């Protein structure tokens, strides 16, 4: 009698497990492309907007692993992903030079902005350059929240400190070790300064008590590149998929989709696969709207 009460539970548990293994078998039949990318492309909603079209066209299913640029390149180096989409030109060049990646292409750019509390205690609004802005923050020892995770943004930030001739250390310099979104929230809570890509800022701007206190310096240019993991290092890597993805991303259609992506009515990324503005150092459009 009572047996009947417990057996249905056990049977349904077993069915669930079977369902799980069947579902996995089905999944392994579709072609999977593993993309390691930065938190900015994922958190801003860009990939969610453009990837369905690529998946429908190519038949690939893209598995997005959103981490910092440093980690993304590491995943590519270790052969744990097929293709990377990152924003750190120097690190990307080193990645290709070391033979970890091939077929690097420029994809798009936006720019970094320096955020701070509305009352701007360090007087960053009066800065003449990005380096000057960083120097003012350091001099005033105003709280600055760093990504601290070797991401593209973090690399850019370190370059700016270097340009400012400042070694950031001390109570005012907080390394969060988290993604861009989280760092923006921390900065908001602490009324701190921070460096962010404009895309993530626009996605968060209505949720934060912070403002842009500095923008427009060419040193804040933020170009994104896509790189296939070198198939010579990992013969069974999905190089065909990576190539298809790179071709689509830099095609007229892919570029148009990137350009058409809006958050709160504002354009976040400017496609530049077919122009030479991809090279670091050239002057970006400072106004992305």
């Amino acid at each position, binding site marked *: *009698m*009572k*047996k009947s*009460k*417990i057996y249905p539970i056990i049977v349904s*548990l*077993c069915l*669930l*497990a079977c*369902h*799980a*293994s069947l*579902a*996995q078998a089905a*999944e392994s039949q579709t072609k999977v492309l*593993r993309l390691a990318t930065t938190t900015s492309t994922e*958190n801003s909603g860009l990939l*969610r907007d453009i990837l369905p079209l690529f998946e429908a066209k190519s038949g690939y299913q893209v*598995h*997005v*692993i*959103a981490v910092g640029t440093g980690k993304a390149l590491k995943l590519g180096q*270790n*052969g*744990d*992903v097929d293709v990377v989409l990152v924003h750190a030109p120097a690190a990307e060049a080193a990645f290709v030079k070391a033979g970890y990646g091939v077929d690097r292409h420029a994809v798009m750019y936006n720019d970094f902005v320096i955020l701070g509390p509305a009352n701007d205690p360090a007087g960053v609004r009066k800065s003449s350059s990005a380096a000057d802005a960083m120097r003012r923050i350091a001099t005033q020892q105003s709280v600055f929240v760093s990504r601290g995770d070797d991401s593209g943004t973090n690399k850019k930030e370190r370059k700016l400190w270097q340009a400012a001739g400042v070694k950031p250390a001390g109570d005012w310099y907080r390394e969060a070790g*988290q*993604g861009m*979104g*989280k760092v*923006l*929230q921390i900065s908001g809570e602490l009324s701190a300064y921070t460096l962010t890509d404009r895309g993530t800022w626009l*996605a*968060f701007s209505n*949720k934060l008590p912070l403002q842009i206190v500095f923008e427009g310096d060419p040193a804040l240019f933020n170009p994104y590149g896509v790189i296939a993991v070198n198939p010579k290092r*990992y013969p*069974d890597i999905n190089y065909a998929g990576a190539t298809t993805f790179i071709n689509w991303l830099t095609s007229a259609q892919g570029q148009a989709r990137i350009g058409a992506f809006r958050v709160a009515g504002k354009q976040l990324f400017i496609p530049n696969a077919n122009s030479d503005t991809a090279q670091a150092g050239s002057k970006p459009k400072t106004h992305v709207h």
Partner: protein
Amino acid sequence: MESLSEATRQAIVLLLSGNTELWTIIGISFRVSMTAILIATVPALLTAFALSHWRFPGRRLLITLFSTFLSIPAVVVGLTFYILLSRQGILGDWKLLFTQTAMIIGQIALCFPILVVMGHTALQSAERSAWETARTLGAGSLRALYMVIREVRFGLLAALLAGFGRIIAEVGASMMLGGNILNYTRNIPTAIALETSKGEFSQGIALGLVLLIMAFSLNAVLHQLQGRGLPVP
């Protein structure tokens, strides 16, 4: 910044409106954790039985080891398997990193010690007498094992619930081994972490509610069974 009550209201709307993405995440969570606990249960309980039934050298050490594993942080388990499963790792050829299988492996490693330790505690209380009674009455070994398990079923069920509770709510290992891939390895805890970092609190709260409701239902079922006494057939 939205208020907690407003976020909670939106969360309930999200849950009730049958938001596909949300329910996919919930489905993945349950599939992965159910599979993990089902795979782990039999070997873990047999280990627990062996530990309580036989006196062999190294037995105490094993018990101590399993108790130690209870308190290993999930991120350490995640990191260990990450290193093993990465393409550069010993098991790299399996290409399992960032798959559901990798998450299942991590979760098995997490719930196994709980099942062994709690199972062992439960079995210890009744094992010897139940076993001997069964054998005296002429039961074979398998039959006797079954009788012992019947005798301590509530303790074992509690072990299962505790193990399941740990892995379904665990974020560190799932994030590292699964990679938080949408519609594939994004489960309830990793989604909560992501949505919080994006400032989307309502989806995080919705998923948190699901975990709470699940914990409540499972415990309610356990208490219901215990209350009834569920006599041996």
